[in-house]
């Protein structure tokens, strides 16, 4: 059964544990039965642990619009679902997190948990926001953005905008095989990348006495 809650922003649909297809059917059965009642509402979906991919969210959004319902947010405990929703420009939380919530998130980060792996190149216009570490297996092209509460690691060329330690963690780092971001931020510090001289090499950027520094990743020194 899909449950419905009224929230300040409109309706919140809560999914049941299980797979997406079953939930989807239940959801549209419910919507179909009381079409006039729902008409014109703004809908947020809480998928909980149900994993929904980008294509599925897109078709859900289209189908809901046929009932004059607007999907504006997808909340989820599944990082891949959160990322999929973000790629479609949907919100992934209802409002700005409360103070204590932020602290809770940083604890998670320090525990070394909560990382999302993005197994493709991020092209211009993609924005990834995650309350943990972000790892990209591919390039980050100019015009793409990554905002992470933890570290950002790019196994490829980094040319977009990145913000590590976005919740204020000054210990966060940004690593890339070729570190040439349009703009690099760690915690509250911002830096532009100087023109590179010579060959690309793996580098790590971090805060050293409040200053952003990027150093070559040299295995011998470690």
């Amino acid at each position: 059964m899909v449950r419905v809650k009224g929230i300040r922003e409109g309706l919140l649909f809560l999914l049941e544990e299980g797979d997406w297809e079953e939930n989807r059917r239940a959801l549209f059965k419910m919507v179909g039965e009381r079409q006039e009642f729902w008409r014109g509402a703004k809908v947020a979906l809480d998928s909980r642990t149900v994993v929904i991919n980008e294509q599925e969210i897109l078709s859900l959004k289209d189908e809901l619009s046929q009932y004059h319902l607007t999907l504006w947010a997808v909340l989820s405990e599944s990082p891949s679902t959160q990322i999929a929703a973000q790629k479609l420009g949907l919100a992934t939380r209802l409002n700005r997190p409360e103070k204590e919530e932020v602290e809770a998130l940083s604890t998670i980060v320090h525990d070394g948990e909560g990382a999302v792996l993005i197994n493709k190149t991020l092209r211009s216009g993609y924005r990834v926001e995650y309350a943990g570490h972000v790892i990209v297996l591919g390039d980050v092209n100019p015009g793409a953005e990554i905002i992470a509460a933890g570290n950002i690691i790019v196994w490829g060329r980094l040319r977009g905008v990145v913000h590590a330690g976005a919740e204020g963690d000054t210990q966060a780092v940004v690593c890339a095989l070729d570190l040439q971001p349009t703009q690099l931020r760690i915690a509250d510090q911002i830096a532009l990348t100087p023109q590179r001289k010579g060959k690309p090499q793996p580098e790590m950027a971090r805060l050293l006495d409040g200053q952003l520094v990027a150093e070559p990743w040299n295995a011998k020194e470690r």
Partner: protein
Amino acid sequence: MPAKVITITSGKGGVGKTTATANIAAALAVAGAKVVCIDADIGLRNLDVVLGLENRIVYDLVDVVEGRCRLRQAMIRDKRLPELYLIPAAQTRDKSAVSPSDMVRLCDELRPEFDWIFIDSPAGIERGFRNAIAPADISVVITNPEVSAVRDADRIIGLIEAEEKGPARLIINRIKTDMVKKGDMLSAEDVLELLAVELLGLIPEDEGVIISTNRGVPVALDGKSRAGQAFRNIASRLNGEHVPFLELEEQSGFFSQLSRFLRKGGG
């Protein structure tokens, strides 16, 4: 064999979507294929002008979708190339007059009768782009060797992948060899390095394109034009032939070599 639907798109305006659509379609039609072009740029139509068919429009795409005419009635046959047809866009409406599922239905109706269906996408990433990409079997992204155009191409390729219409194939248009050599223009390699997609064609800068566009005669029909040759090569590649990419070097005569030598000498 049912037709393949090719959507030509770019994100940025003015990089050559319409010119490429007209010329690749014409080149395929010359080679004997049955081709129809659909102008999806409702409200800002151009494909009819580039093909020289503007004065023959009676019905358009929106008339078909809204049921004011049969599909056949909106198809304009090119007199020079009897296997080339155009379905023009409406000029007095906007993109919202057509939906993505209308485009899919329309293409499904055309498929059995044709070898190729070309869709000329409008600039932008909104409704018009979504209409154009919805029925695509092959997505072709066209860009110029300029940073802003390449940035938009990257965005469009991402959107094509998100709509599961990928992998996109790339055409780089208006390459100026002499500027690339001097390091003043992005080279094809620079563009490919960033976009990381399969290359479909390289089109050199050619004044003949402007002349042919103004006259409404596709440059692909001109045997002497270098851009025309590049478009014909793209048509062959779509037919599955292996055609090497045009060597974009200028024919280097004595004087051009001398001037290059002098430039180098001068630092």
